[in-house]
């Protein structure tokens, strides 16, 4: 089994690497840009899905953790850049992981007090923390303040982003299928029932929040090293809302749904470019209609493959 899995892993890496080469040769940069942005969107959506969909805690500050990841990794590769190592692929990879860890730490610090709250209050507190994180970066002159941080080595290409998509997907799938995942889901279903069954709900909320922040930080790091420029305006409240829309569209609690949502929400504005100025109106309209017509999101709690399974059996 172990051998089989490592074989698959190597195969995935190989495929991604060759697709990367093919893309760079054959497709124009705009398409590559959209595809990579889709990947970053997927990571963001999957990570937020863990908190909003699986643990049932409504967080509206995801852009803040993305900012922590982006700024930490970008600082390591530009402002600090202790050695040329930090300009190489591996160095940037390390920086991005460090960014993820920093975001996880921020998630822990934010989550510890705020997860005592529920529902709308939690939403508004996480929103507040998200904004505070952004304002803090806005006020640190060493990372550019309002002018932003330019000159980040653009090392995150299709290969690295989609490698992280695969890693995020596998990690979260495994987490959800473990005893931790079951406990997290039980918190969503009924907190009081879960608590009376001996589930330490605060612990599992924090676990979900920290893991989610980690991957949001990774998404931020990739974003920074793909765009090669970040400023506090990249992580405004609307970015958090975008992440929420991704999760809601795909279905709260569905990992594959989050991937789907990540793709749709990134692609839709590009596809609606024909309507240029109306796209940002059509977008929220779709969200409202979705809530009225299909409140569970497109796939609900189910994964995409489970939908097909059900069809086959019935």
């Amino acid at each position, binding site marked *: 089994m172990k051998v089989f899995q490592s074989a698959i892993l190597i195969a995935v890496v190989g495929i991604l690497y060759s697709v990367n080469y093919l893309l760079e040769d054959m497709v124009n940069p705009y398409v590559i840009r959209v595809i990579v942005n889709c990947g970053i969107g997927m990571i963001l959506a999957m990570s937020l899905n863990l908190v909003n969909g699986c643990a049932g805690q409504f967080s509206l500050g995801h852009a803040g953790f993305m900012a922590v990841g982006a700024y930490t990794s970008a600082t390591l590769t530009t402002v600090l850049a202790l050695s040329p190592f930090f300009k190489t692929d591996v160095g940037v990879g390390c920086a991005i992981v460090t960014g993820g860890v920093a975001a996880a730490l921020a998630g822990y610090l934010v989550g510890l007090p705020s997860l005592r709250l529920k529902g709308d209050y939690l939403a508004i507190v996480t929103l507040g923390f998200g904004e505070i994180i952004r304002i*803090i970066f806005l006020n640190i002159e060493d990372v550019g303040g309002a002018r932003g941080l330019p000159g980040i080595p653009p090392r995150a290409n299709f290969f690295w982003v989609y490698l992280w998509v695969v890693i995020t997907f596998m990690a979260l799938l495994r987490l959800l299928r473990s005893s931790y995942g079951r406990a997290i889901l039980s918190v969503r279903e009924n907190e009081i029932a879960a608590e009376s069954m001996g589930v330490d709900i605060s612990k599992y909320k924090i676990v979900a929040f920290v893991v989610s922040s980690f991957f949001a930080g990774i998404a931020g790091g990739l974003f920074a090293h793909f765009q090669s420029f970040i400023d506090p305006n990249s992580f405004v409240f609307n970015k958090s809302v975008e992440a929420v829309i991704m999760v809601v569209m795909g279905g709260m609690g569905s990992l594959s749904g989050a991937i789907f949502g990540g793709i749709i929400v990134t692609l839709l504005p590009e596809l609606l470019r024909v309507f240029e100025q109306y796209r940002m109106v059509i977008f929220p309209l779709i969200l409202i209609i979705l809530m009225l017509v299909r409140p569970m999101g497109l796939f609900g709690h189910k994964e995409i493959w489970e939908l097909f399974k059900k069809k086959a059996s019935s």
Partner: protein
Amino acid sequence: MLQAFLQNIINGLAQGSVYALVALGYTMVYGVLQFINFAHSDIFMLGAFSGYYLAKWLSPAIQNPMLLMVSIILGSMAFCVAVGLTVERIAYRPLRGAPRLNVLITAIGVSLFLENLGQIIFGADPQVFPALIPTRSLLEGDGLVLNNIQLTVVLVSLILMGVLHWIVRHTKLGIAMRAVSFDIEVANLMGIPTDTIIIFTFTIGSSLAGAASILYGLSYPKIEPLLGMMIGLKAFVAAVFGGIGSILGAAVGGIVLGLAESFTVYYISSTFRDAIAFGILILILLFRPAGLFGTFRREKV
């Protein structure tokens, strides 16, 4: 030193009473329906723009500045009520009884929709809100600035809050509203037409937002389609600070927030202006989640 301190209090009061008016809209809807009406901030924005256009059309016809201002305030209030009720009817009413998360997401959707619609209709560039009444300084010497606009803002807010207090405390409608916010199901069983009461709640909340938007336009004559977002968030913080569902709380919360902001800008830095509101929010939620005047309800199984 003392002079700067007093000046900050004056600025804070003027700013805070606008927050308080907007906060009342949040707190009333939250009290009745238990959800954050994110679209409220954009109703505020639409109110400001309706005031902008009303001023354009009405100023040739009405010469008396006082009459002009009152008619613009009333017009903007009416417009906001129309928008608020439309939103309630189309987006919120079908979701009554749905999970709270869905209502919250719908509210965010409505908010984004109105914001972006505003950007298409009014353009993304800021517009200059016309000066309806000429600015006159009321205090001479001493370096203190208190002008008639600041005084108008505070006075109009006080009058509106007084009217609201009277409605909620001393009319049949107010009693029904309090009953609905206490327990919507039981109120329904007691024969209170809850849907009508909810409509009235939205009417009052939206009209206050309309009035607040004109007062805002008078004191900060730069309006843009995204203007509602920050003010809305801060007004919500004010509502939570005072205890959500409490009318006195929203008023006090708004004033406190206005003061805190004006002191932050003066003594720390203007870039932290937006952070202080959220800082206050986090502190209050951690130490007194029900807010200053709120009552904490324990969840029952």
